[in-house]
Each structure stands twice: as structure tokens, then as C-alpha cells.
């Protein structure tokens, strides 16, 4: 019998409890382990040798240092799992371990299911069943401890948090499935507007849940705030003013290889990274190099947590241009050159030169960044759970757009189901019979 169950991809897992501790260990195992290690771990001195604990930096996929850690690597056939693998001994902060795991996932690694590393160890013949059972016992004890640490109520809270979105999925599926399976019944057309509204609310709820999970990342990296606007809108001046005002400049990195300038500073108790990008204007008017800069600006904008849009107050149709630009915080800059005639309540008036409106702007940005989040909520979602909720949200978004574009019902249903399956993975429930139950309780069906 050929049996290579599960041994197809590279997996990673936190081998220690998901709670603050002196040291946390992330374990990576599978065919791509060596490649992953080369791409994310830089030894402090010389090259890394197998079996030898080596100190160095672990980097995220953008090349930024996540932690100073110790890495040990094992070649294929000689590790705990029997596969090529490595372990990172990190500083034991959930914020760090989560960032490292997220970065592994971004590089194509899969988060291990509980016990999967041990399962692989048995599958590759590294340990026998009794050893596996012993390990399982230890893991179980540790999990319980971790669960106690995190608090049972939090887990209940998670189930409760996805209860609403899940009910919306079942509702929408019942409406759609009934019409697919019973075309000769007089079910009328589904109330698409009502379904769309329910799904939108469900999607928003999942997004909210995901945001609670990103507090950890935000605590570490800071929220990304991008200054976005036409050339000469005063973005660079504003950046310097914000940095100077705060006197909290961590580093000031000129865009040598990329035409964006990043400054980390503290704003209302939260660390933020403010990014100054190339001015944007119609692509037809610009050359190739500037075009690249604009593309980069748009990328930064897409990735940002908060977008600050700027237009100089003296520009023609300044307000209209600003609103067309859109953003989380709207700014008319250079008001020293002439205040606008019409004042819009949602627009900050700023003169970086004369120090006008900077405080109000900081408050507005801080409000959009949101609170840093209480420490205990950071552990609300484990990485595996984050991935589940993310998958659910993405599939739900696809379902919404399919519904919106009047795609065939079977397509909408397919996306809704795939969203439901992701939530099922999170909660360990089965969506199948539940949908049929909903169909039959709601519609008079059959001949």
C-alpha cells in the first residue's frame, strides 16, 4: 500500500503554548523547510550547520526583522518528524510568534492541525505508536494549560462571534438551494436585496473579528498610514511635521530602492508607520519612472490601514478633487496659501508650515487607526483560527460579488458553502444537513 497521507506540503506550528512565556518555539517541517529557512533566517555569524543551535535574525517576507532568535535545523530523515525541518526559538511573546507564523503562511507554509507534527513523526517511522501516545498526552496537557490561560470564555466568545455570520450563510443557502433543487415549486424569486444585506453584515462581522486578530500585528508593526495625493500636495512637509512634532522618530528611511519614505512614530499611544509616496496624477501625463512610482503609491494605498488623502487648498476644485480621491482622512493642505471658501465638516485643514491643524489631524488619524486593543484580546484568535476566518471572509466576499453580478445560483451557493466550510473548520460543525433542515422548515416543497 502506498500511503503518503498528508505528506504533501510543508507545515508549521507553534510547539509551545500560545501565551506569554520566556521562550516560544515555532516548528516547520516538510519538503520546503530548507528553502523556507534560507529565505527567512539570517545567521549572525557564518553559515548554519545542521543540529547546531545558531543565533540570527528571523525576517518577514518584506525583509524586516521580526525577532532575534535561535534556529536549529535537521536534514531530511533525521528530525523529530522525519522530514527536513527547523525550529525557531523566539522571544515568547504571542505578538512575535504570531507574526512569524503569519509570515510562514505568507510564504506558502500551512498551519499544522493539532497533533499533525507528531502524526508525521509516526508516519515517517521516527517514533512508534506508544511514543506518539505519550507525546499526545503531553500535548493535551499543555493545550489544556494554554486553554486555561487564554480563558474558556474567550473560546465561547469566538463561537458566539461567528454565530451570526454562520446563521446568515445558512439562511442564504436555504433560499438559494431550495430554488436550485425544486425548480417546479412556486418559490418565487429570492429576496436578493435582503440576502445581500444579511451577507454584507456577516462579512462585516468576520472582518471585525479579523481586525481583533490584527491588533497583535499592529502592536508590533504599527498601523500603516499612507499619505496619498497629487504631486506637491505637501505630503513630505506634512510627514516631517508629524515626525518633528512627535519627536518620536524611530528611524527615517529614505527611499533609495523604492520611492516611498517611511517614518515610524507614536500617535495617540499606538505605533504607526507613516508612508509618503509619489504624487499621483493621470498616467497619460507621466513618464515610465514616475509611472512606477504611482503604481507603488497605489500598492501602498491598498495595503494601508489608514489612507490620508491630501490636496492643496489652492488647487482648482480642491474639495471636489479631494472627495474624488477618497480616503479615511481627508486633508486640505497648505491652507496658508489661501483658505477654501467652503468648509466641509469631514475635511481637516492643515498648514504644516504654520503648524495649523496638525493636532486635529493626529486625532483624526488616531481615531481611524483605532485603539491598540487590550492585551488579552490579542490571543482571541490563534493563527489557525485566523486562517479559517480569513478563508470564510474571502469566500463570502466572492459570494457577495457573484450575487451582485447575478451569477447562476449554483455559483453563489458554491461560494457560500466554501465560506461555511471554513467556519465549520473553525468550530467543527457540519453545514450539510443543516441547510436541508432550513429548506424544509421554510418552504412547502414536494408534489
Amino acid at each position, binding site marked *: 500500500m502506498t500511503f503518503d*497521507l498528508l505528506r504533501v506540503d510543508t507545515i508549521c506550528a507553534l510547539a509551545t503554548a500560545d501565551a506569554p512565556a520566556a521562550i516560544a518555539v515555532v516548528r516547520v517541517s516538510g519538503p520546503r523547510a530548507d528553502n523556507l529557512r534560507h529565505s527567512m533566517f539570517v545567521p549572525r555569524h557564518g553559515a548554519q550547520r545542521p543540529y547546531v543551535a545558531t543565533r540570527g535574525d528571523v525576517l518577514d517576507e518584506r525583509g524586516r526583522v521580526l525577532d532575534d532568535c535561535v534556529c536549529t535545523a535537521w536534514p531530511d530523515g533525521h528530525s523529530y518528524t522525519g522530514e527536513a525541518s527547523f525550529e525557531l526559538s523566539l522571544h515568547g511573546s504571542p505578538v512575535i510568534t504570531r507574526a512569524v507564523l503569519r509570515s510562514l503562511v505568507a510564504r506558502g507554509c500551512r498551519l499544522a492541525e493539532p497533533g499533525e507534527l507528531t502524526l508525521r513523526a509516526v508516519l515517517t517511522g521516527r517514533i512508534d505508536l506508544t511514543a506518539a501516545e505519550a507525546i499526545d498526552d503531553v500535548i493535551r496537557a499543555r493545550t489544556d494549560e494554554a486553554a486555561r490561560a487564554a480563558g474558556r470564555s474567550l473560546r465561547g466568545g469566538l463561537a458566539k462571534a461567528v454565530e451570526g455570520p454562520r446563521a446568515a450563510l445558512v439562511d442564504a443557502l436555504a433560499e438559494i438551494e431550495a430554488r*436550485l433543487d425544486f425548480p417546479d415549486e412556486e418559490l418565487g424569486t429570492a429576496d436578493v436585496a435582503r440576502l445581500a444585506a444579511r451577507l454584507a453584515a456577516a462579512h462585516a462581522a468576520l472582518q471585525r473579528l479579523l481586525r481583533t486578530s490584527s491588533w497583535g500585528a499592529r502592536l508590533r508593526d504599527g498601523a500603516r498610514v499612507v499619505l496619498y495625493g497629487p504631486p506637491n500636495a505637501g505630503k513630505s512637509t506634512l510627514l516631517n511635521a508629524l515626525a518633528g512634532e512627535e519627536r518620536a522618530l524611530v528611524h527615517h528611511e529614505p527611499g533609495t530602492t523604492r520611492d516611498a519614505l517611511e517614518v515610524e512614530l507614536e500617535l495617540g499611544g499606538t505605533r504607526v508607520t507613516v508612508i509618503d509616496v509619489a504624487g499621483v496624477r493621470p498616467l497619460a501625463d507621466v513618464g515610465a519612472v514616475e509611472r512606477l512610482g504611482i503604481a507603488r503609491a497605489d500598492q501602498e494605498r491598498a495595503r494601508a490601514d489608514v489612507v490620508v488623502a491630501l490636496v492643496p487648498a489652492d488647487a482648482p476644485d480642491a474639495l471636489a478633487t479631494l472627495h474624488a480621491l477618497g480616503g479615511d482622512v481627508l486633508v486640505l493642505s497648505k491652507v496658508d496659501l489661501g483658505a477654501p471658501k467652503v468648509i466641509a465638516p469631514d475635511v481637516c485643514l492643515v498648514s504644516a508650515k504654520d503648524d495649523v491643524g496638525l493636532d486635529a489631524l493626529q486625532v483624526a488619524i488616531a481615531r481611524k487607526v483605532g485603539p491598540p486593543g487590550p492585551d488579552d484580546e490579542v490571543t482571541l484568535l490563534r493563527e489557525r483560527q485566523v486562517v479559517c476566518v480569513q478563508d470564510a471572509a474571502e469566500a463570502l466576499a466572492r459570494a457577495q460579488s457573484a450575487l451582485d453580478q447575478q451569477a447562476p445560483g*449554483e455559483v453563489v451557493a458554491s461560494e457560500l458553502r466554501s465560506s461555511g466550510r471554513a467556519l465549520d473548520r473553525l468550530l467543527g460543525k457540519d453545514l*450539510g444537513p443543516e441547510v436541508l433542515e432550513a429548506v424544509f422548515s421554510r418552504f412547502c416543497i414536494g*408534489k
Partner: protein
Amino acid sequence: MPGTGIGSRLAEVLVVGGGHAGCEAALAAARLGKDTLLVTGALDRIAAMSCNPAIGGVGKGHLVKELDALGGEMARAADDTGIHFRILNESRGPAVRATRCQSDLERYRAEMARVVQGAPGLRVRQDDVVALLVVDGRIGGVRTAGGEELRARRVVLTTGTFLGGVLHRGAERWPGGRTGESPAAGLSTSLAAHGVLLGRLKTGTCPRLDARTVDVASLPEQRPDEPAPRFSVDSGPPPLPQVSCRLTRTTARTHGVIRAAANDGRAPLFNGQIGGRGPRYCPSIEDKVVRFADKDSHLIFLEPHGLDSHELYPNGLSTSLPVDVQLAFLRTIPGLEHVEVTRWGYAVEYDYVLPTQLSAALELRALPGLFCAGQINGTTGYEEAAVQGLLAGINAVRSLDGLDPIVLRRDQAYAGVLVDDLVLLGTEEPYRMFTSRAEHRLLLREDNVGARLLELSDSLGLASATRRARMRGFEDAVRARLRELTETRVEPSVANVLLQRVDGTPLKEATTLLQLFRRPEVDVPLLWELHGTIGDIRVDERVKVELSYQGYIERAHRDLARDRALDDALLPDAIFAAPPPGLSHEVREKLVRLRPRTLGAASRISGVTPAALGLLAVELRRIAASAP
């Protein structure tokens, strides 16, 4: 009589029952070269349609096409005797698009009987089977009411609603499998005596109407589709004239009559007379009126029994109310004011074998050699029955030949979903196929049956060489067309005029026809215009589906990859003989009882946790490692 009596072998495969499951099982076994005997209580009722004169529908049409691909008979017989063909769900997407036909009920029966009676290697016998013969824990044949022992190495039970059947109408109740036919008595006792667990289900049928007393002309017409869609790749255009159905609906007065009867305790469904659980999706009219009281009218389809018949089947009016109530409520329905009834509606309660006692081959674990198919397994519907009969017949033959059974995957066929659901989850109400039962619905379409099953069908060799060649020809044509469209480029000067007509974005440079055909606004006729030639409509529609669903299909295949690894891991008997330590009591009990064939099947049993799966996987590896 030669060939009878203890010790003499009468058949290699013996099929009990001549309904839709029995016919397919017997034909498959005989065509695969086994000496086969079909025993039925009424030879002139072979392949009778006990309920509505229709085949196919959403999920069911899919099953019929799968059956055709694997070598079953129902698809072709339905095509040859159908008098009204339609495509359902034309606009709801290719995966739920389905073929359905009204059959000339008598012609269908006669056609199927002709094929069964004429099949080489297949003998038929009219007799009542009352007991199983069991030798050393294995099936050895059956005993008839006359005391005769019919010996066989494999037996397929397809008793339909006849197993312990009781009919109900009003206060009347009498034993029977179908109106006018006696039930299979004794067989239930025999099954139970061998440790087989039975449950009880209920279903019902409509009164039949005399068309000459219905004001047909006053009712809206439902016409068949032109040209008629087909079930079998073997079929040409329908040989019989095509007719329409009529539509009418219940009124507030209808509901009043029914409600009054129910309140007077005259409905066997509500007064405790019927205990078996009925199907929620095929409820009786009294059920609909009481449970969905806010709905003041229900749609009724008047379906003709056949070209030579004056009977109409009022689809939607299944009932077991007393005859005076049936007539009273019928006459409140528009067009039926003066209707005369030819046969009364009734409900039937019957025994079924809890299907979780079956292996995925549809063989009873408690009695090796005994296969079950159709309503005896808790399903409802001719199509569900037929496809199980086919699989049971094939697997009975394979077990005789020492071959592994055919077990279809859930992503391969609705037939696979059906069997997997039955044997792993069981059912507590009559099980009907819905497309929503298939988690890989977008992969299981009527249009890609060949892609899903041709390879298997070739290895089975049950479908005729001609049928398989037709399927292969179609799949080859689809591939060739994809290649052609990939290689053919169109200039903007040609394309943009045509694209403009459908508000499509104009081309800036030449592109392939394939790229253009991907666009939602480019349909098959437009493709032909772009190409400058007319193609094969069926091929091009299939190509269009593949292109427009490519993203979904690829995502589904990614989801599948992981499931597939689990489904490829077969669980050996040893694992059930000594389940690994660490499993919970509940999981252990379920595994030993249900004996899932693969790790994937185990994962679909409710209550089996990922941790339990992990332990099973570990044990599996250990067993494999310790094997010589």
C-alpha cells in the same frame, strides 16, 4: 424439476424483485456473464411505475445519465418511451441543469420487460420469496412461499415497498406492496432473525383521474422542450409523439375540505394510524395544508399516464385521506369540478434495512453475499433505485470474481454521493437525491458524465462498445475543440464589429478564440460568427461551461486534493478488529459498526474528530509497516 432442491445450484446471482432496482441489477449481472435469476411476485408488473409517470429531474437526471454511462438500461428505455421531455433549471447554471421526462407508463414497463425477458443469461420466475437461506453465515439463496429453495451464490434484494408493506387509506388498512399486489411477508422476519436491523418508512401516491372528466382545455399548458433533451448517448429523437402537461392549483376550498377531515380525525397521517416517517420533500397534500397553513394554494401538474391511457396523474396531490374526502377536495380544484377518479390515492408503510449495515458495495456486512438496492435501503425514487440496482448487480458479480467492488467517489458521481450518504450516515426518512447533497456540485454535471465515468465504464465493460465509443467521441471532440480554439487567432478588425454588438470591450490586438470565448458576453452563436463556421452545439456548450467555471473548478480540485488523500487510504479489517487505543467509546462503537472503507469515509461519520482520524492514520501506518 431440475435444478431445485437442497444442494443444487440454481443461479450465480439471484435478484429478488422486478422493480427499477431489480431490473438493473439482473441485467448487469447477466450482461457481465453470470447465470442470473430474477424472482418477482408478479411477472407482468416488471418495471412498473408505482407512482408518477416521470423519470429524471434535478439530481435524478444526473443519476440517470451516470447509469447510462456505466451500462444501465433506464436512460435508453426512458428515451424510447418518453412523451414529454424538459430541461429544468435552464438559467440556474450548468451544474443544476437537469433532464426530466414524462413516460408513457405502460410502454416503459413493456419495454423494460422486453429487455429483461430477452436478455441472454437472465431467467425470470414468478414466485413469492419468504425467507433467506443462510449457510455458514453466508447467503445461500432464498425460500419461496411454495417451500422451494432457490440456491444462489449471490442474492440481491430489491423489495421496494413490499417488505412488510401495509397500505392505508382513511380508516382502511390492508397488507400490500402496491395497490392490487400482496406484500413480501416473512422476509422481514427472516432478515431480523439473521441480525439485520429494520426500520419503518412511509410514502404515498396520488389518486389517478379520468382525463375525459377533466376540463383540460381550460387549464394552462406546459409544453415539452424542442428539441427533446435525451438521457442516453445512444438515443436519437424521441420515437413517440410528444404531448403537454396541464397545470392547475388547489384553492382555499380544497384546503378547507382537507382541514375539516384532519380535524375530524380522518387523516391516518395525523390520527396515529401511520407511524413510519415520510419524506419531507414529497409530502402528502394533507401534510402541506396542515404544516404550511399560511400558503393558500399549491401548484398541481396533471401528467398523462400515456398515449393510450385516459388516466392523469395529479402531481402534488399524494394523499391517504378517505375516498369521499379525496373526491370532495379534488372537485374544488379548477378544471376538476366534475372529475371522476380511476384509482384512489393511498399511503404505504414498509420495512427498510438500516443502510448503515451495508458496505459501500451495498453488501450486508452481517450476511456476506447478500446485496440490497433501492427502497429497501431507505431511498425513494425510480432513479435512486435503478442506480443502486446497477451498482449492486455489478458488485455482486465482482465479488463472485474476487474483484474489489466499484465504489464511486463523491466528487465523481451523484451515485457515489448516494451510496456514501446511505452507508455512512443512514437515513431516517425516504432518501431522495438533491444536488445540495453534493459538496462538489459544480463538478457533477449532466454535461460531463463522460469525463467523470468513461474510464471506469471502459474498465467495467458493461456499457456497450458503441455507447462508450459515443462518449469517447464526445470527450475527444471537446478536447479537440479546446485545442482548435487555443490555436485560432482573431484580428481586431474581425472581432470588434461583432463584439460591439454585445457591448464587449474591443480588442487592441489579435487574440485567440479561446480568450474571447472566456468572456461572459461571448456565447456559442457569437463564437461561431467570430470563427466564421458553425460548430457542434453540444461540444461548444460544454467548452463554454468548462471555460466559465474554470476558476471554480480549479478551486474545487484544490479542496479535493486533501480529501482525496484521505479517501485513498483504505482501512483494513484489522483496524476494526482491534481499534487503536485512545479512541473515545462513541467513536470506537461507530467505527466498528459502520466499518468505513477509507479514512475519508471515517471522517464523514458524525462524531469522528480530527484527533480520532489522526490515531487511525497512525494505526494504518503501523499495520502497513508490520506487514511482510
